């Protein structure tokens, strides 16, 4: 089947050559720019390694997150226990991998979901304009008055005893506001453009216009913030979990792991330092990748302003 398709495609090639080089599309320009940014490669490759490590890090390892090695308790890093053990012989390496899985999962869901929420709410406000715009913006400002962490801490009784999925949902609900304001500003300049007007006068439904015309035009912003949002969500989740307001035992995240390691951090640093380093590297990778994306997509940002 694929052979046949290849054969059909082949004769077209000379024609394309006659037309000379194809004009560079926006997407190709962005990719070309990204490929030349070291930050992008450092960020994405590190992130890739971390994801693969979270998935397969325990495949060839002798201990799991709940195993207790009575022969070696409270030991530093050894060939047997790569990150050392805690006071009941639990293996820190295995616990780190399992905690990393949960934190990554939460980050990779919350980042994109909150970017989408921001996209729809921001686009709705910007596109509708008038009273609706003012109401939505006022509501966003209201949500921005108090730190999201305060609201999440106040919601703690509803999280207590629940699964980590609830934490994920709350994180997504309270992290879209600032991006929504940015999207709104972009959208209000889009709504008077001809292609949007044409669609409106043809009687296309508002929801369809937003989906087909507005969202694709602000998608670069959304992609950037979905990437940056991954790191931000991991930061908030670990902070909440560290103080006991996020992921609850028996679930393990990097935050709960750091929380249990912190008491002995000065005397047995391996309980704290290794998970903390993994956490920092993960978030750093997402912010480097996101920043490189911003430079590549946004002509007014960073590297493009010489």
């Amino acid at each position, binding site marked *: 089947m694929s052979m046949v398709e290849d054969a059909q495609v082949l004769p077209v090639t000379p024609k394309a050559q006659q037309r000379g080089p194809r004009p560079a599309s926006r997407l190709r320009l962005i990719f070309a720019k990204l490929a030349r940014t070291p930050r992008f490669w450092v960020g994405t490759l590190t992130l890739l390694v971390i994801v693969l490590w979270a998935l397969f890090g325990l495949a060839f390892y002798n201990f799991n997150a709940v195993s207790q090695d009575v022969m070696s308790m409270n030991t530093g890093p050894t060939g047997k226990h790569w990150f050392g053990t805690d006071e009941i012989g639990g293996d820190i390496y295995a616990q780190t991998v399992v905690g990393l899985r949960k934190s990554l999962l939460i980050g990779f869901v919350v980042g994109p979901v909150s970017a989408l929420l921001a996209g729809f709410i921001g686009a709705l406000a910007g596109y509708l304009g008038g009273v609706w715009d003012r109401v939505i913006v006022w509501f966003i400002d209201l949500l921005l008055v108090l730190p999201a962490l*305060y609201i999440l*801490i106040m919601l703690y009784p509803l999280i207590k005893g629940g699964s980590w999925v609830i934490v994920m949902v709350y994180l997504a609900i309270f992290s879209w506001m600032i991006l929504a304001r940015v999207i709104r500003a972009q959208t209000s300049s889009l709504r008077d453009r001809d292609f949007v007007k044409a669609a409106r006068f043809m009687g296309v439904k508002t929801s369809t216009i937003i989906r087909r015309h507005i969202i694709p035009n602000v998608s670069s912003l959304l992609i950037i913030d979905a990437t940056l949002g991954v790191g931000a969500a991991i930061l908030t989740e670990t902070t909440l979990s560290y103080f006991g307001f996020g992921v609850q035992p028996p679930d393990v995240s990097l935050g709960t792991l750091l929380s249990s390691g912190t008491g002995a951090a000065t005397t047995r640093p391996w309980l704290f330092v290794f998970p903390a380093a993994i956490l920092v590297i993960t978030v750093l990778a997402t912010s480097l990748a996101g920043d490189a994306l911003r430079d590549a997509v946004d002509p007014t940002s960073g590297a493009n302003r010489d």
Partner: protein
Amino acid sequence: MIGFVVKRFVNYFILTAIATLLAYVLASLSLNPAQRYLGRNPQPSPEVITSILDGLGVNPNVPVLERLWTWLSNLVTHGSLGITVDNQQVTDVIFARAGVSLRLLIIGSVIGAVLGVVFGVWGAVKQYRISDQLVSYASFTVGATPTFVIGVVLMILATSLNGLTGHQLINFSGEYTAGLQGNFLVMFGDRLNHLILPTITLSLTAAAGYSRYQRSAMLDVLSADYIRTARSKGMSRNRALVKHGVRIALIPMSTYFAYSFALLLTGATVVELVFSWHGMGEYLVRSVQQNDINGVAGSVMFASILVLIAGTLSEIVYAALDPRVRV
């Protein structure tokens, strides 16, 4: 200018007031004040629990809007925010703790803002040089590190420093050394010593965000025509950068300050918890853990007032820097 600032103040005032009231409702719905007494042995009778909850004004059987109204009218008529589960006036607790938080917030934000602006401007002026890259990567790394990790790592470093020198050079647990005797200078020095690590933690996190933002605002300004005009009039490079560059680049920073104030509050709360300071952020957390609705509402109101002040301050700075709003 005054009209502009007053208008923004009223807007902020309404927002923060409504946010506080909503927070009261949210706390009333999510916290369970009776739980504190149900675990007692012997268990108090339901009548006792009901009368305690009525006394606190947090009985869940009274409609939440009615409780809110009582709370609000007590605040307006008596200046009281209700009593805590430990039978203290919430206002007394706030007055006792506010200084701790304010000390941290003011010193931390001032040092953070100054460092952020300096490093941001420096990075923009030296764009792509090694120093710019260093500042950039450092701010990325600090931004990727949760505040509590910075705090704990600093504690580890301070402990090993104390161990190396054999003296208790840096104290970091609590806000002052309990039971320390001495004159004013000794006490003041002790508090200053306890301030070191928390302040470093908070200013580092704040500076990381500010410097990224200041750098990009400064880059915008540097490519503007009026800098070239100023230079071609014969103004020296440094003078042009400061008079026409930094001043203009600070305008978007004043807006960013208002937005990032919530981050600063979050950071201060984390710092208080990590270094076991008894400030207002720690009070919010403790109140939630104790199911103390009045305590939660009081600490949220304190935070809202700070947000109101920070927002108004940033508008004043904005108006002072940008002549357009004064016309």
